[in-house]
C-alpha cells in the first residue's frame, strides 16, 4: 500500500513541478492524474499496490470533505444575500443539466444506430 501512495505522491510532485516550471493553468494534482492515466495506458495494467492505495484514499474521500463542508454553517451574515442565487443555481441548474445531457446523448446515440 505504501508503494501505491509513493506512486501517487510521486506523480503529484511531477505534476506540481510541471505546473510551476511552465506556469500551466491546471492544478498540479490534475496534471499528475493525467500523467498517471497516460502511464497506466502505456503499462497496460494497474499494479496491485497502486490499486490498493488508490482504493483506500477514494474510500476516505467523504471524510476529507466533512470539515470544509461544515463551514457552510459558519459562513455568517456576509453570505446571507447569496443564498437565493446559490440554491437556484444548484437545483434548477442540475435538473436542466440532466435534461440537456440526457436528450443530447439520446439524440447522438440514436443517429449513430441509424448510420449503421
Amino acid at each position, binding site marked *: 500500500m505504501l508503494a501505491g501512495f509513493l506512486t501517487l505522491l510521486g506523480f503529484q510532485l511531477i505534476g506540481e513541478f510541471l505546473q510551476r516550471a511552465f506556469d500551466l493553468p491546471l492544478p498540479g*494534482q490534475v496534471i499528475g492524474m493525467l500523467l498517471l*492515466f497516460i502511464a497506466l495506458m502505456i503499462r497496460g495494467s494497474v499494479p496491485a499496490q497502486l490499486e490498493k492505495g*488508490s482504493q483506500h484514499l*477514494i474510500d476516505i474521500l467523504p471524510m476529507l470533505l466533512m470539515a470544509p463542508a461544515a463551514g*457552510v454553517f459558519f459562513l455568517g451574515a456576509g453570505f446571507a444575500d*447569496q443564498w437565493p442565487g446559490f*440554491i437556484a443555481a444548484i437545483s434548477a441548474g442540475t435538473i436542466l443539466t440532466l435534461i440537456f445531457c440526457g436528450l443530447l*446523448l439520446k439524440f447522438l446515440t440514436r443517429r449513430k444506430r441509424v448510420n449503421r
Partner: protein
Amino acid sequence: MAGLELIHSPLFALVVTLAAFQIAFWAYQRSQRFALLHPTISGAVLIAGTLTALGIEYPEFYQNIHWLNFLLGPVTVALAVPLYRQLHLLRDIATPLLITTFAGAAFACGSALILAWSLGATKTTLLSLTTKSITTPIAIVVTDDIGGIATVAVASVILTGIVGIVSIEWLFKKLNIQDDRLWGFCLGLAAHAIGTSRAFERSTVAGAFSSLALCLTGTVTAIFVPLAANWFAAL
C-alpha cells in the same frame, strides 16, 4: 479544570472528525444509503453541532484540521485508476460520450452561473459555483486556484449531487431514457461521486458509465474553468 484546553488542539479536531465520520457512515449504511444522510452531509452537521456545543470557533477548528486537505492531492491523482479501468467501455459510443462531456460540462457550469448571476450572486460566489458538477477534490483545488471559497464550492458540489440523485429517476422516466449506459453517464456528469454511487445501485453498467463521466467531466472542467476564469479576469 486543567486539561480541558485540549479541545483547542489538532488532536481533538482529528478525533471529532474521525468520530463524526464513523457515526455518519454507520447511519448512512443503516438507512440504506438515504441521499440526505450522505456521510459528507451528516458528518458536517455532526461537526458543526459539536463545535457549537463546545463553543469552538470554526476558523480555529479548520486551522487544526486543515492538514487533512493535503490528502486531496493524492486522491485526485488516484482518480486516474478508475478512469483507466473504465476505458474499454468508452469504445462503443466514444464520440457521443465525448461530445456530451464537453457540451454537458459547459452547460452545467454555464447554467449555474447565469442563474446565480441573475439572482444577484457576487463574483466570489460565482467563482465558487463553476465547479459544482465535478468531484469535490478537483473542485476544491480548482476553486482555490481561481479565487473562489472552498466551503461554498464543497457545499455546491454536495447539494448538486443530492438534487441529481433525487430527481433523475422521475426525470429520465419522463424523457424515456432507460438505457443503463446513458442513465449512468448523465448522472455521473451532472452529479459526480454521489450520482455514481447511486448509479451502481441501479446496475454495474450504469455505475461504470457514471464513473467514466465523473472522471471525464472532472478533467474537462479542471482544464477549461481556470482558462475561462483567466480569460474573464483579463477582460
